[in-house]
């Protein structure tokens, strides 16, 4: 019997887990550090050898022409795709290979390029979903079904927290509207509020200013800075709007065809001849 179990164990080890990623934490001064991160789809190298280092409280930009692999990087960092090469670390903790849920629990939250709200729920409840895993609002299924006092307490506290968050984004008055009925700009803001509700250490924003008018964009810049300052947040964002990026980001990485073209200080990186060539198409 014991022999059988051993043989099963060795089989699992050799055949199934043979190349599984062994996680190793490192000592890192950076909130996010990626090492040679890459993914290939069939023959297509969607991203390769991406090394990004983001310091605490930085607003970091990820830019590049269409199809450069920016959203792919986001998907890698949030576990939607599993990287085929490389690793990434959050505050030195290796998160490579974790599921989306787990990565979120570890402290990375994101928004989406094409807005993904819970359309049939009200605004306030969208945010409350974000608060779901907060240890403060822990409440088991049985507690809820039996309607123990804890359930009411938690619900009330969650609602209050959600309202507070919505206030920051000036969405408090809309809280009882269905999310799908909000105007576009407000939907984007709601997505950020919802991501923030999960209490992340690193916030990934995928084209937050897309489709906004200049006034709204200006407003957004203020809000993002406010988040960074008041929530002690580190932010990685994708954006096309150069003005937006140069006005907001401390450092950037420029991608093209899945590889890093330039990185570093926003101004220097943007004036790199390679970057200009990639954008203008020289």
């Amino acid at each position, binding site marked *: 019997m014991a022999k059988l179990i051993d043989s099963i164990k060795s089989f699992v080890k050799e055949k199934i887990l043979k190349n599984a990623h062994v996680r190793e934490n490192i000592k890192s001064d950076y909130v996010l550090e990626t090492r040679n991160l890459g993914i290939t789809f069939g023959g297509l190298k969607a991203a390769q050898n991406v090394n990004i280092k983001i310091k605490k409280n930085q607003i970091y930009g990820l830019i590049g022409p269409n199809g450069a692999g920016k*959203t792919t990087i986001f*998907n890698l960092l949030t576990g*939607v795709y599993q990287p085929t090469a490389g690793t990434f670390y959050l505050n030195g903790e290796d998160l490579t290979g974790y599921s989306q849920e787990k990565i979120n629990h570890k402290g990375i939250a994101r928004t*989406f390029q*094409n807005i993904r709200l819970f359309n049939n729920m009200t605004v306030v409840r969208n945010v409350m979903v974000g608060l779901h895993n907060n240890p403060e609002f822990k409440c088991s299924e049985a507690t809820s079904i039996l309607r123990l006092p804890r359930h009411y307490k938690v619900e009330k506290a969650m609602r209050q927290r959600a309202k507070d968050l919505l206030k920051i984004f000036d969405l408090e008055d809309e809280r009882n509207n269905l999310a799908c009925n909000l105007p576009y700009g407000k939907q984007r803001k709601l997505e950020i509020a919802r991501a923030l509700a999960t209490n992340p250490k690193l916030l990934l924003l995928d084209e937050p200013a897309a489709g906004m008018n200049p006034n709204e964009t200006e407003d957004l810049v203020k809000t993002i800075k406010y988040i960074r300052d008041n929530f002690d947040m580190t932010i990685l964002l994708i954006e096309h709007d150069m003005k937006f990026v140069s006005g907001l980001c401390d450092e950037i990485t420029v991608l093209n065809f899945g590889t890093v073209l330039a990185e570093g200080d926003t101004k220097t990186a943007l004036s790199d001849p390679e970057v200009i060539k990639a954008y203008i198409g020289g």
Partner: protein
Amino acid sequence: MDFLITLVNGLSLGGIYAMIALGYTMVYGIAKMLNFAHGDIIMVGGYTILLFIPVNPVLAIVAAIVFCVIVGVTIERFAYKPLRGASPLAVLITAIGVSTLLQSLAQVIFGSAPKIQQINLGALQLGQLKIEISTIITLVCSVIVMVALHLFVKYTKVGRAMVAVSEDKGAAQLMGINVNFIIMITFAIGSALAALAGLFYFLKVQTMTTTFGALPGIKAFTAAVIGGIGSIPGAMVGGLLLGVVESICLSIPAISAYTDAIEFSILIIILLVKPTGLLGKKRREKV
């Protein structure tokens, strides 16, 4: 020798399943909906054949095809077309409704008592092998139909348009393809195949009831999913596979009572290993 007969029987049954499965799969590929009422189109075909066969067998076949096409296209026009763009769940439930509607209509018209019509085409003696002629006809015809369909989709203008619509409806429309027309054609072809399947199934069963199409319909649906719904070669492979499995299971008395359970278990196992079926295409959602 026995096994050979089992195999031939299985292949001919599989051919029928494949023909029905083709209807499911084409409609799924192009209209992105599960036409649950497809099995009942077979029933419509069966009754048409039953009505016309005393007049003339050839006329019966033609009438069945024509009538099934009319019914199929009408259903598409009135039940499914208004729901284009609505949630697939709504369409699926409508299809279930249409299926019940057809069955109950048939019962109002023909009554619930089974109707028997004997058709004996004789058997062919090949050495020691004795095979029913109807089995051979079914097998040959289903192969011809499948090859023809494959060529049609690959080499004709309409066929290529169908592929285009199944890939990307919006883009196809921009390219000047009349999407509504293509969907209508798909339903027409699917219904014609169902009529043929009805004919061959009737040759086997020789009895008409209002639930005539339910069993082959569900089996063919299973076959289509096994093969990867949306994939034409998948439907063929799935249909033939299921037919042979069914025939083999039935030929072993110890497990024959569990035939349905075995078939459905195969389905579940295949889906768990390959969630999109044997030949189905994976689709990636853009995040």
